[in-house]
C-alpha cells in the first residue's frame, strides 16, 4: 500500500514535470523501473499475462510472468500496470513523418526531389524532429518509423528513426539502409491535352521503362565493381543493394508488376527485397514466400481500387499474406498519411476483424517491420536485451475504444505524452465562458 502511494506520487510528479516539457525529448534513463501486473504483448505472437518487465539502462533486463519472475526491489521505481497492456512501440513502415509539416503548404514540404533516378538523395537530413505531427504519434503508441523519400523512379535512401529526439542524428536508429523504387505502372493515362482519352489504358512503355531501370542497375553494379576513379553519387548510393547492406523497397501493386519487380531485383543480385503497396500481392503470395520477399502492405483503411473488388479487399489482404507465410508490415501511404500514421494500431486492429489473431496483427506493426528494416536486434519485441521502447495502455491498443496510454518509453526514456494538441485541449477545456 505504501509502495502504491509512492508510485502514484511519482507518477504525478512525472506528469507535472513532463506536462510542460512538450517537445522536449525525455532524458536518459537514470533509474531502473519495473512494470508490474500488465498483460505483456511481446510482439512476436506471444502474450504474457500478469507480467513483470524490468528496465535498466534503456534495456529490458527481465520479462516474464509475475508468478515465476522474482523482482529484486533495489532502487527501482515500480509502475503498477495491473489490468493494463504493455506493447512494444509501434513502428511506421514506409513513413514520411518529419518530411512535411502541412500538406498544402509547399514551403513545409521536403518529400521528394526533382529528377527520376535519385538513390543518393538522403531523407534523414531533412527529418524534422520538431514536427508537431510526429509528436502526435506518441500518445497512440507509435514510437518509431522509417523516413522515406518519395517520387521519381528511384526516390532515394531512407533511414529509421525514433520519434523523440533533439535532431536527426540522435533520432536515427539505422541510417541510409533502404533504397526506394517506384515500379513502372501497368497502366498509363492518355494525354488529354493531345486529345487522347484521359482514362487509364495499358502502359505501352512498360517494357521500355523496366529496361531503363534495369540498365541503371547494371551500370551501377559495374561502377561499384570498378575502381570508382570518378565518383558517381547515385551509383555509389546503390552499392549497398549488391552487398546486402541496404534493402530494396519496390513500390508495386499489381500482380504482374510485383512479379516483374521481384524477378528484376533477383536478377541483379539484390538479396533484401520488400514490396511496398502490394494490393494484389495476395495473388502471388507463395511466390513471394519462396523468394523471401516481404511486403509493406498498403494502408488498410483504403478503398478498393476497382469497382468490382470486394468491399473488404484492403481489410483482408493481410490475412491472405500472413497465412501464406509472407513477412508483412503495414504502411500508411496515401492521403494525409503523416497525420494518419497515428492510426497505425487501428489499421492492425482492422486486420483482426478480417481474419488475423490480435497477436498476428500486432506483429504487423512491431516485430515484422523491425525485422524488415533491420532493427530487430533492438526493437520490435519485448525481449531481454532489447531496447525498452514500449508503452502501457489502459486496454487493447489496437482498438480505439481502449487505446489509452499512460506511459511510453523509448530506450527506457520516459516520454512526454503531451502534444500541441493536448495542450490546446487542456487550455480550451478551461476557457471561461465568454458573454456576447
Amino acid at each position, binding site marked *: 500500500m505504501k509502495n502504491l502511494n509512492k508510485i502514484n506520487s511519482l507518477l504525478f510528479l512525472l506528469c507535472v514535470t513532463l506536462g510542460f516539457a512538450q517537445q522536449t525529448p525525455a532524458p536518459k534513463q537514470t533509474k531502473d523501473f519495473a512494470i508490474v501486473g500488465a498483460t505483456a504483448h511481446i510482439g512476436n505472437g506471444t502474450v504474457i499475462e500478469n507480467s513483470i518487465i524490468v528496465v535498466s539502462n534503456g534495456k529490458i533486463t527481465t520479462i516474464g510472468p509475475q508468478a515465476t519472475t522474482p523482482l529484486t526491489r533495489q532502487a527501482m521505481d515500480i509502475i503498477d500496470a495491473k489490468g493494463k497492456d504493455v506493447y512494444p512501440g509501434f513502428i511506421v513502415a514506409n513513413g514520411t513523418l518529419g518530411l512535411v509539416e502541412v500538406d498544402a503548404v509547399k514551403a513545409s514540404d521536403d518529400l521528394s526531389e526533382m529528377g527520376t533516378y535519385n538513390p543518393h538523395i538522403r531523407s534523414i537530413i531533412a527529418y524534422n524532429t520538431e514536427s508537431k505531427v510526429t509528436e502526435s504519434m506518441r500518445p497512440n503508441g507509435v514510437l518509431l518509423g522509417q523516413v522515406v523519400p518519395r517520387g521519381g523512379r528511384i526516390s532515394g535512401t531512407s533511414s529509421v528513426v525514433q520519434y523523440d529526439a533533439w535532431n536527426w542524428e540522435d533520432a536515427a536508429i539505422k541510417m541510409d539502409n533502404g533504397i526506394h523504387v517506384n515500379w513502372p505502372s501497368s497502366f498509363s493515362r492518355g494525354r488529354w491535352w493531345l486529345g487522347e482519352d484521359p482514362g487509364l489504358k*495499358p502502359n505501352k512503355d512498360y517494357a521500355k521503362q523496366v529496361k531503363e531501370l534495369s540498365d541503371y542497375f547494371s551500370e551501377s553494379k559495374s561502377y561499384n565493381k570498378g575502381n570508382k576513379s570518378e565518383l558517381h553519387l547515385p551509383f555509389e548510393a546503390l552499392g549497398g543493394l549488391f552487398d546486402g547492406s541496404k534493402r530494396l523497397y519496390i513500390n508495386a501493386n499489381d500482380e504482374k508488376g510485383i512479379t516483374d519487380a521481384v524477378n528484376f531485383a533477383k536478377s541483379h543480385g539484390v538479396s533484401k527485397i520488400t514490396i511496398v503497396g502490394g494490393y494484389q500481392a495476395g495473388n502471388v503470395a507463395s511466390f513471394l514466400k519462396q523468394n523471401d520477399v516481404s511486403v509493406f502492405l498498403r494502408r488498410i483503411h483504403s478503398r478498393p481500387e476497382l469497382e468490382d473488388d470486394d468491399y473488404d479487399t484492403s481489410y483482408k489482404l493481410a490475412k491472405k499474406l500472413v497465412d501464406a507465410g509472407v513477412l508483412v508490415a503495414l504502411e500508411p501511404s496515401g492521403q494525409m498519411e503523416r497525420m494518419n500514421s497515428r492510426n497505425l494500431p487501428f489499421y492492425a486492429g482492422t486486420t483482426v476483424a478480417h481474419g488475423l489473431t490480435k497477436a498476428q496483427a500486432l506483429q504487423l506493426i512491431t516485430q515484422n517491420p523491425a525485422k524488415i528494416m533491420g532493427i530487430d536486434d533492438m526493437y520490435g519485441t519485448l525481449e531481454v536485451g532489447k531496447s525498452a521502447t514500449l508503452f502501457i495502455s489502459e486496454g487493447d491498443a489496437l482498438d480505439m475504444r481502449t487505446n489509452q496510454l499512460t506511459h511510453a518509453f523509448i530506450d527506457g526514456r520516459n516520454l512526454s505524452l503531451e502534444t500541441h494538441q493536448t495542450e490546446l485541449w487542456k487550455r480550451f477545456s478551461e476557457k471561461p465562458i465568454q458573454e456576447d
Partner: protein
Amino acid sequence: MIKVHLRLLIFMCSFSLFAQDYFPSNSGVIANNSNYTAFTNATIHVSPTEIIDNATLLIKDGKVVSVGKSVNIPKNTTKIDLSGKTIYPSFIDMYTTFGVEKPKRGGNGPQYGASRSGYYWNDHIMPEQDVMASFKYDAKSASELHKLGFGVVNTHMPDGVVRGTGALIALNNNADNAMRVVDGETTQHLSFRKSVRSRQSYPSSIMGSMALLRQMYNDAKWYEAGHIDTKDLSLEALNKNKNLLQIFEAGSRANVMRADKVGDAFNIQYTIVGGGDEYERIDEIKRTNATIILPIDFQLAYDVNDPFLASTLSLSDMRSWNQEPHNPRLLAENGIKFALTTHGLKSNKTFSSNLMKAIENGLSKQKALEALTTIPASLLGKSDVLGTLKTGSYANFLITDGDIFEKKTKLFENWVQGTPHVIANMNTKDIDGDYNFKLAGNDYKLTITGSTSKPKAKLESGDQTLGTKMNYSDDWVNLTFKTADSTKKAYVRIVANAANNNTLNGKAILENGNELSFFANKVAKKDTNKKDGKKKANDATETPFMSPITYPNLAYGFTEKPKSETLLFKNATVWTNEKEGVLEQTDVLIKDGKISKIGKDLSSKNAKVIDASGKHITAGIIDEHSHIAASSINEGGQNSSAEVTIEDVVNDEDINIYRNLAGGVTSIQILHGSANPIGGRSAIIKLKWGEAADDLIYDNSPKFIKFALGENVKQSRSRTNSRFPQSRMGVEQVFVDYFTRAKAYDELKKSGKPYRHDAEMETLVEILNGERFISCHSYVQSEINMLMKVAGQFDFRINTFTHILEGYKVADKMKAHGVGGSTFSDWWAYKYEVNDAIPYNAAIMHNAGVTVAINSDDAEMSRRLNQEAAKSVKYGGISEEEALKFVTLNPAKLLHLDDRVGSIKVGKDADLVLWSDHPLSIYAKAEKTIIEGVTYFDLARDQQMREAIKKEKSELTNLMLQEKNKGLKTQPVKKKEEKLMHCDTMDSHH
C-alpha cells in the same frame, strides 16, 4: 420513251436542278428539264409500313409524282428498269454537325465576366447563334453519308449550353445551298456543356448548367414581359426560337433525366440525344415522354487475352459492351419513340454494322426504318416532304438489291432531290464463280470473288497457284498472271468481256507477245443452297446472350430489387439512443418499414426471425458531410451558387453507396463543395442501393445549403487571383452583400410588385425565413465567429458548422448561437488552417452543450464512422453511448431528421445496423444494413454476389475472346476509375 444509260441520266439531272428561275444566266440559254423519270418493276418501301411489289416510282423536279402498281407514265419519261431491286426512302439523321467546322478553343481562363455585350450575361447561352452563318456544304462528308443511306441531315453548331438554331440540309451534291437547304431554321439546340470558345467560368458543373438554363428561361419571360429596358439579343432569340423543335444533347441516361427535369419545369418537352445506356433504367426514360435521338456507338469487345490487364476491367464496362446493342430493341419494346443518329460514332463507317448489330439483337427492321425516316421527318415537322415516298415528297430514296438491313445487301444509288449519287454500279454483272479455260495447251482454273464490290481472282494451273491481278469494270475483265515457270518473271495478260454472267470472252497476250483468243466457262455450283440453308437455320435459333441488367447496373447491383420485410431480431444488445439507453438481450421487430416493437420475448407471426444473440443493433449511421453518389460537387464558377442543387446530380450507380452500406451507413447529406462562400443546395439521401437517383432523396427533405469559409473560398491555392474574395475579410462582405440584397428582394416580392425571379435570391430568402438551413464549412475561430455575427445581423441562425476544427475555441459562442458542430474525429495537418485542429474538438464542443456529429467528407472514412465516433472516447473521454450518437442521432438532429431516423424508437424508420460486435470497436463488422425494412447490405448475400460477379465476368470474357478469335476488332482494356470527390473536387473535362 427512251432507255438511256444511267450516266447520261446523271448528266441531265445535274443540269435540270441547277439554277433558280429568277437568277440571270450569262452562260447560255436557260434550259429547264421538265422530263419525268420512272423507276419500274421495283419493290418499293413507300413508308416503313407500306411495301409495294413490282411497283413504279415516278419523279419530276426532285419530287415524287406518284408511286404504285399502276402509275400513269407520261410520254416525256425516262424509264429505269429496277427488276429485282428495292427502293427505300432515304434516311434522315437529325443530329449532326454536317458542314460545320469544329469550334476552336478560345481565350485564357479563368474569366468571370462575359466576353460579349448586348447578349445574355453568360457567354454559353447563344440562342442567337444561326448554324447557317458557319455552314459550308461538305460534299466529301455528304458522299460518306450517302453510302450509309442518308439523304437529309439536320445540322447545328455543337458548342455552348444554348447553341442556337439548326438547319435541315439535303445531301444533294449536284446543287447549291438554295436547293439543298430544306429549312434554314428547324431546331434549337441545348446541352449541359459550355462553349469552348469562351473561358467564362460559369457554369463549371452539370448542376450549374441546369441552374443556368432555369434562370435563363425565367429571364426570357421577364424580358418578354418588357421589364428590361436594355437589349438582350440572346433572350430575344430564345423567345423567337420557342416554337422550334428543342433538341437537348444529354449523352447519357442520367443526363436524359436531368435535361427532362429542366424542361418540365418550363413546360418544354425536349427531344433528347441519349447515350445508348437508356436500357439501364428504361422505366424512368419512358416516364420522361421524351423522344430520344439515339446514338448507336456500340463498344468493341475488349482485348482480354492478357489476364493481368483483363482483370482490371470492370463488370460494368464489360456489360456495356454486351448490353448496349440491345438498347434500341428495349426502347422499341417499351414504346419509347426514337430516331437513330450517327452522332457519337468515332467513325461514321461503323453506323451500318452497328445498326445490323442492333437488328441482330432484336430491333425490328420496321422500327429501324421508322427511326431513320418517318420519326425524324415528323419530329422536324417535315412528314409531308420527307421520310416516305408519297406523292409530293422529295425524291430522296435508295436503290438496293434487297433488304437494306441485311449485311449482304448492296446499296447502289442514293437519290437526293431527284439527283442520283452512285455508290455502286447496279448494272455491274455478278461474275463470281469458278471458271475453266485452256491456254497454250495448259488447263487453268480461275476463281473470281467479290466481282461487284472488290473483285479478286485466284488462278490455279495443275497444283500451282499463280500470282494474279484482276480488274473488273464496265463488264470488262483485265487479268494479269505470272507464268507457271517460276524461274522467269514473265506475265500473261487477258482482256475479256463478260457478256453474260456465265462466260468470259476475249483474248490473251502471252509473255512472248503472241495473242490467242480466250474463252472461259463458269462451272456450275452445287452446294451453295444447302450451305445457306444450314446457316440460316443456325441464325434463327441463336439469340445473342445478354447479361442481366441489375439495379444499379454494375457489380453488386440487384437483379431484383430487395423488398421491405417484417423482421424480428432476437436477443440483441440494442443501442436505443433514447432514454432507455443500451438494452441487453432485447428483441426488435420491424414492420412496414418502421420500428414496430422493442422489448423482451417478442413474437410476430409473419416475421422472419434473426438470431442476434451476442450481436448489437444500432440506428443506421448518418453522415452529415458526404460527397459520394453525386456526379458533380462544386459549382465554383461564381462566388455564390445558391441556385444550384446537388439533388440535380445524385448518382445512383456509385459503388461507394454499396460500400458505405457495408459500413453501416444509411443516410447521408451530399453537400456541395467548398469552392465558394455561398455554395449549392444539398441532397439528403438514403442509401437505397438500386433505386433511381430521385428515389434516394428523402421525401419532404429538409432544405440545406452549403456555405464555406477560409482557404478554399479565398482560393489560397489557386494560381490566379481573379475572383472576389481573396481574404477572410472579403468573405464577410460577400455574405453581407448577398443577404442585404436577399432582404430587398423578399420585400419587393412581398409587396406584390413585379419582380425578376432569381433562383439565387429565392434560396437566400428561404434562409432568412428559416426555411433553409446552412451547413457551413469552417476552420478557424475568427471566421466561425464572423458568420454567427452576420447571421445575427440578419436575424437568422446558422444550423451547422461542418469541419469546424477550431469549434473548441468558440464552443461557448456556438452554444449561445444554437449552432451544431459536425467535425472530423482526428484529421489535421493537411493545410495551414488546420494547424490547431485537435481530436478533442468533438469532446469540448459536446461538453459545452453543442450538438456534435462526426462526419467523413471521405468515401473511405465514411465506411467506418462508428470507429471515428469511438475516437471521441479515446480523445476527450466521451461516454460510449454519447459517442455513438455522434454518428447517428446527432447528425439526424442537425439535419432535422430526428423525428424519422437516428434512434431505435417505435414508429421511426427501420434504418438499422446489425453489428457482429460492440459497435464502437475496431473488431465490429456490419452484418446487415437495413433501410425502411429493406436489407440493402447483407454480409452473407455479399459473398454470393462475389461469386456471381466472378461467374458473369468469365462468361463475358469468353464471349469477348470469341469475338477476337473471329477476327473482329477489339479495344484495349481500360481501368475504370472512381471519381473520388472531396470538398475541393471540381468537375473535369467540362
